[in-house]
């Protein structure tokens, strides 16, 4: 994929993530911060389907943006065919692993498997 397209994805994920993370933070501010972290409240959040779907989208957006940012930093640091290939595939693998692990939590908590 061309770097110009990757940068558009990087900026797009950033803007979308800012909006959705703001909603995520506002959800914590609807009540006292410590109360919003109570077990029942957090489980209720996961059972609320629109919110759970939003968390999944935030997870994907931030993982893609975060690991692409790390990829950019590592490619600025050093260049070379083998190195660049390792960084590119490594960042894709890390993104997939983080999304899979986070999705597991959202699915299990949302389906009452806790």
């Amino acid at each position, binding site marked *: 994929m061309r770097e110009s397209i990757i940068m558009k994805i990087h900026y797009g994920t950033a803007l979308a993530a800012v909006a959705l993370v703001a909603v995520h933070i506002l959800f914590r501010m609807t009540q006292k*911060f410590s109360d919003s972290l109570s077990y029942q409240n957090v489980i209720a959040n996961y059972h609320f389907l629109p919110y759970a779907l939003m968390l999944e989208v935030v997870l994907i957006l931030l993982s893609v943006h975060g690991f692409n940012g790390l990829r950019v930093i590592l490619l600025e640091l050093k260049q070379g065919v083998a190195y660049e290939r390792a960084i590119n595939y490594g960042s894709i693998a890390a993104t997939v692993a983080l999304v899979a692990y*986070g999705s597991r*939590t959202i699915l299990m908590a949302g389906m009452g498997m806790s």
Partner: protein
Amino acid sequence: MAERLSNREGIRGMANPTRYGIERVAYWLQRLTGLGLLAYLIGHIYETSSIVNGKVAWEKMLELTQTPQGHIILTIVIGMCVYHTANGIRVMLGHGGIGVGKPGEPEYPYKAASLNYKQRLCIWVSIALAALAMMYGAAVLFGD
């Protein structure tokens, strides 16, 4: 070849925020906050995964994170998040050609049109917004 290699500073050069003014500091902070936020994201996903192990595991995790040290870390994360967002929007607009001025003839002392007062102001505003958000965040976290 030896001369070219001698100019390579590697990670030390990247970690040095000095020599090139506030724009370099902004670049350095953008990368530093990005790395910090990625580390927090991974930690946050791991932290919240404890909910699938039941109420006891969740409360045990809260005992670890809902401490003064945990609140200090969260306050720093708030600051990193706000700076990264505000400065990131400046960078995005700059890449789109907004606020970078028009190219002109290079004249002594060869000041780049793109490094103008608007850009510098935006960097300082990003830092100020981050400081304000940290103060608000600390008030909410410690005032609980």
